[in-house]
């Protein structure tokens, strides 16, 4: 081969050309590397939890260490993997490309947000290696204040700092989508991934500052011994729970909305059909973001919140099911009479729809006041939110990584291995978490290192599933890295997909497009004839 074509990947080779880059695509890769590391750290902690629960008395560790294991698993996975995953990796890579721009509005701010993320996650790692945190990922007072005997402060500082990375990313996306769309790219021609990224960004900018100030107050309480959340000094620990969940419930939608956006891209592409009900899918993202701010009280049904507040929060939580269901129905309707290709991203998208539906419907169980009293703080809740966060968000993330991998790397991954990984992850996931619904319903509380012997069969099933799941997650790591060197060249549009990002070479040049593209058609303008050619 002669001189390779210039792309963002070979625009410079030194470490400096990466660490000081302002190219949104390179920053996306920096995020990809950092969060992949943290994902496997968090995954290893989950593995230890599952191994410990093989026997009723706890195979490996005692209660104290176990508290630290599940706390660190939750903190790392939520704040340092799930929340940044799709927005910071795929969002960074795709937002400018999908709107035909050369970069985000504030490229240096974008680099700063990666550095904030690195500083924040380093503090989290420091807190982990110096002994970890045992409060549960929710930092509930007084575990995190009066009675804490672990490294709450560095961890809280790490999350505080990482929060500003999210805020800056969200700000950057909103400004970019508002001001930098290519000629002809009206709001209702935007890819649905951008609608969901926009909705996610709204949550970032409205919610994240609140968790930041809340953790700052916890810090004040610990450093100065004041009692904002301490009833002994006139404070109220439930206020902490309100402030915490005001952010942390919407944060669940930060995890799931971008994954929904990914699925909305994959399904029309591999069904060769326009998305069914574009504007409903678009507005349902906004509706989820808005409603998401009004439901936090459903975490406080048994915290002494007034029963009337509980009823209102229960009702509002049910409302969130409507936009979520709109999406599921519209994806399904898109598949109807489509020319469906079962390629890897589509398999992940199918996995997402099924698992998210189970996670969403069990969410209605726990949003019901009476049922929640029975299953609160049991494995039922653990299974429910893992169906959303792992079955939903991680499946969507992996689907997106596979779908845009040829664009990111310029190479194709081995299709057979990739399909196998999707199937292994789906099976392993269900074997891990479905037994936990049963465990929880039977009364197994969460966060215990030991349990009565009659629960052992279900726990062993869950641990076996988590082993399969772990292998499933290692597979893409191996074959995607392999494909960087040995994968066949992808070409600019291997899926025959619509969307501006596919109109530029893979990997794209630093400035994304040779000429600013002009958009003349709606998103997902797939047609029947093309479908036949493609097959």
């Amino acid at each position, binding site marked *: 081969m002669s001189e390779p074509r210039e792309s963002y990947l070979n625009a410079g080779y030194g470490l400096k050309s990466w660490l000081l880059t302002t190219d949104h695509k390179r920053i996306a890769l920096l995020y990809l590397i950092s969060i992949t590391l943290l994902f496997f750290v968090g995954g290893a902690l989950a593995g230890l939890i599952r191994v410990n629960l093989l026997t009723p008395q706890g195979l490996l560790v005692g209660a104290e260490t176990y508290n630290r294991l599940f706390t660190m698993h939750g903190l790392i996975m939520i704040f340092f993997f799930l929340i940044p995953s799709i927005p910071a990796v795929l969002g960074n890579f795709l937002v400018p490309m999908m709107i035909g721009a*050369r970069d985000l*509005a*504030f490229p240096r701010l974008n680099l700063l947000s990666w550095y904030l993320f690195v500083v924040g996650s380093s503090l989290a790692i420091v807190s982990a290696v110096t002994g970890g945190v045992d409060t549960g990922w929710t930092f509930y007072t007084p575990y995190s204040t009066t009675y804490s005997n672990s490294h709450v402060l560095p961890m809280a500082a790490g999350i505080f700092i990482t929060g500003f990375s999210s805020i800056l990313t969200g*700000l950057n996306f909103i400004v970019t989508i508002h001001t930098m769309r290519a000629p002809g790219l009206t709001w209702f021609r935007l890819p649905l991934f951008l609608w969901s990224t926009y909705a996610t960004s709204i949550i970032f*900018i409205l919610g994240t*500052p*609140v968790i930041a*100030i809340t953790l700052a*107050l916890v810090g004040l309480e610990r450093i100065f011994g004041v009692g904002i959340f301490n009833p002994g000094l006139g404070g*109220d620990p439930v206020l902490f729970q309100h402030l915490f969940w005001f952010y942390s419930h919407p944060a669940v939608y930060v995890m799931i909305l971008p994954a929904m956006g990914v699925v909305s891209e994959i399904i029309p592409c591999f069904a060769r059909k326009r998305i069914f009900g574009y504007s409903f899918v678009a507005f349902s993202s906004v509706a989820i973001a808005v409603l998401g701010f009004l439901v936090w009280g459903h975490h406080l049904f048994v915290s002494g919140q007034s029963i009337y507040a509980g009823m209102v929060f229960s009702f509002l939580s049910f409302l969130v099911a409507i936009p979520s269901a709109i999406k599921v129905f519209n994806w399904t309707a898109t598949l109807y009479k489509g020319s469906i290709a079962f390629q890897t991203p589509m398999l992940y998208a199918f996995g997402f729809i099924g698992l998210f539906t189970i996670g969403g419907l069990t969410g209605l169980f726990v949003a019901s006041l009476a049922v929640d009293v029975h299953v609160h703080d049991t494995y039922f809740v653990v299974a429910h939110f893992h169906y959303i966060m792992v079955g939903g968000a991680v499946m969507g993330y992996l689907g997106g990584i596979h779908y845009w991998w040829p664009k990111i790397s310029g190479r194709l991954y081995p299709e057979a291995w990739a399909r196998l990984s999707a199937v292994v992850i789906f099976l392993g996931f269900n074997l891990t978490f479905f037994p936990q619904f049963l465990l929880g319903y039977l009364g197994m509380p969460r966060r215990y290192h030991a349990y009565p012997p009659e629960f052992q069969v279900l726990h062993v099933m869950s641990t076996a599933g988590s082993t399969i799941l772990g292998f499933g997650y290692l597979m893409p790591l191996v074959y995607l890295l392999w494909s960087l060197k040995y994968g066949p060249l992808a070409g600019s549009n291997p899926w025959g997909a619509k969307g501006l990002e596919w109109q530029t070479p893979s990997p794209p040049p630093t400035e994304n497009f040779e000429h600013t593209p002009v958009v003349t058609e709606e998103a997902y303008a797939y047609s029947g004839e093309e479908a036949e050619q493609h097959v």
Partner: protein
Amino acid sequence: MSEAGSALATQFDDLDQQHDAATLGMWIFLVTEIMFFGGLFAGYAVYRSIYPQAFAAGSRLCEIALGAINTAVLISSSLTMALAVRAAQVGRRRAVVVLLVATMLLGTAFLGIKFVEYGHKYAEHLIPGSGFAYTGPYAQQVQLFVCFYFAMTGLHALHMVIGVGLLGVMAVLAARGRFTPAHYSPLEVAGLYWHFVDLVWIFLFPLLYLVDLHK
């Protein structure tokens, strides 16, 4: 390329687009700031509604005269800030620098007066924590008020310090002639930030100093 061209970042097509992006970005940032302060305001509101007498007693510990002077100082600084942006729009470079320095001086005066107030609290052992020495009724709840007093005014003062630094950078840029009537968006967004910080104080002053005034 012209002078305007050098101010244009590569990701933008023209200065108008860049200006729109900069102002929208700052407005969104201010929204995040409202939510950031909002957590404190929410906590304040909850405890004030539970402990009205203690918050009234706590408020009587604040020095209304100093707070009022500071309010006037800060409103004046917003005026000089607005005039500085106006001067940039009409291209009066010297006036921009003078007005920015005036704004910084007023901001510093505010911080100085605040520092004096903090000093008085320290001398009277009214710093929350183990050394808190208030002896009247509801001492613990009064301590909560003082906690919010320090958290809210402290966070506000931190924003003032950042603002004064930001305006210093702007003054240097203005002195070097970086702003033209066609390109002054950095100055405008710095102004937005300054007005926001001013506005926070407009809420803090009555909430903290004037709780019990009408009695």
